Each structure stands twice: as structure tokens, then as C-alpha cells.
């Protein structure tokens, strides 16, 4: 039987998203150590670089999926009644989707 809330998929999503974010954090830290953007113009230009903004967008997608799996696990551990579970999970999903739309817009407006 297929279990929508269990199995290998969330386990794998959690690890792949973690590794991707780890690589992006390393990339950003390395850049900031070598050549920190010193002004608004420099920071905006750096973020507007297509390579950087696409990598940032993928990282934020990874972040929101990672947050979904993690918060879902916490919810399933502590919220037992079905109705409350559905309500909490729906709230989390809505918030994460909204956050995703917001950050997409932020990055879209900064494109060079």
C-alpha cells in the first residue's frame, strides 16, 4: 500500500534539499569572505546575476520543501486528532506556499 505520509520520499527530500542548501550556503559565505558587497548597488547587482538568482531560487525551493518535511514530522508526532492534524498541516502548507510566492517575487524583481 502506498503511504502518502511515510516511506522513502520525504527522507530523500530532506537529505537532498539539505545538501543543496549546504552547497549554496558555502558558496554565499565564500563569496562574502572574499568580496563582500559593500553597497546597495553592489549587493543588488550580485543578487541580480542570473546564476546567483537561479541558485538562490532553487535553494529557497529546497528550504521550503525541507521545512515542509520537518514541520510535517513534528506535527504528526504531537498533534494526534485527525481534524487538528489536517488543520495544522493545511496552515503550514499555505504559509510555505505563500512564502515561496513571496520570495519568487523578490528574486524576480531583482533580475538584471
Amino acid at each position: 500500500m502506498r503511504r502518502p505520509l511515510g516511506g522513502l520520499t520525504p527522507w530523500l527530500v530532506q537529505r537532498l534539499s539539505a545538501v543543496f542548501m549546504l552547497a549554496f550556503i558555502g558558496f554565499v559565505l565564500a563569496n562574502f569572505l572574499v568580496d563582500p558587497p559593500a553597497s546597495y548597488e553592489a549587493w543588488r547587482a550580485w543578487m541580480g546575476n542570473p546564476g546567483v538568482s537561479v541558485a538562490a531560487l532553487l535553494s529557497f525551493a529546497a528550504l521550503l520543501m525541507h521545512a515542509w518535511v520537518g514541520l510535517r514530522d513534528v506535527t504528526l508526532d504531537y498533534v494526534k486528532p485527525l481534524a487538528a492534524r489536517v488543520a495544522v498541516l493545511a496552515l503550514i502548507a499555505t504559509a510555505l506556499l505563500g512564502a515561496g510566492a513571496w520570495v519568487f517575487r523578490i528574486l524576480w524583481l531583482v533580475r538584471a
Partner: protein
Amino acid sequence: MSRRAPARPVFFKLNQIQMPVGALTSIVHRVTGVILAIGIPFCFYAMHLSLDSAQSYERLTRMASNGLFKFALIAFIWALSHHLLAGVRHMLMDIGIGSHLSDARRSAWTVNVGGVAMALMAAGVVL
């Protein structure tokens, strides 16, 4: 007639429970995960301010000079550091590195202390 499940030992005296160091690493990994998730909208808002215009960028730098902002930032960096280190420890164990008890204890200490050390370094930069 329904039979009750056999009684299991229940012991909730938190001040008397021996928490092995790995248990501390693990529960803090979970708690910091929730903290970081709550921090997402604040991070996105900061990113919006930093990129929207030169004025909003100025506003963010003014906000960042506030003591409460700095404290929250350092706490957030601690949460991120602990969560990240504990996650790396977890994935190393997935591929069989450091899953013996003595190694696991040592890496748990490394994670717990390393997260605080990274927060102190951040405090050195921020303050």
C-alpha cells in the same frame, strides 16, 4: 470486554532523567528546526528590504543597529549552526560514519559545542 494495554513504565521527572549527549543534540536539532521555520518570513522580509530600493536597504541597516535585532540575529545564527552541524552528523551516520557509540558521543559534543562556537563568532562580527 476490551483489554487495556499493559502498563509501561512512565517517568516524566525531567530534572531526574539522564539525557545522554546525543539526545540533547537530537532534541535541539528538532527545536532549532522549528525556530528556523518560524524565522523564514523574517528572513524573506529582510531580503525584500535589502533588495527593493536604496531607501529600504538603508532602513534595514538602521534596523540592524538595534540591540534586539542583533540579539535575535545571533540567536538565529546559533539555531542555524546547530541545525546544520547536527544535520551533517545525521547524514554522515546515514552512510555509516561515526555510528559507533563512542564516536557518536564525541560528534554529539562537537555539534553542541560547535553550534555555540559559531554563534560566538557571529557575535564577534555583529557586536
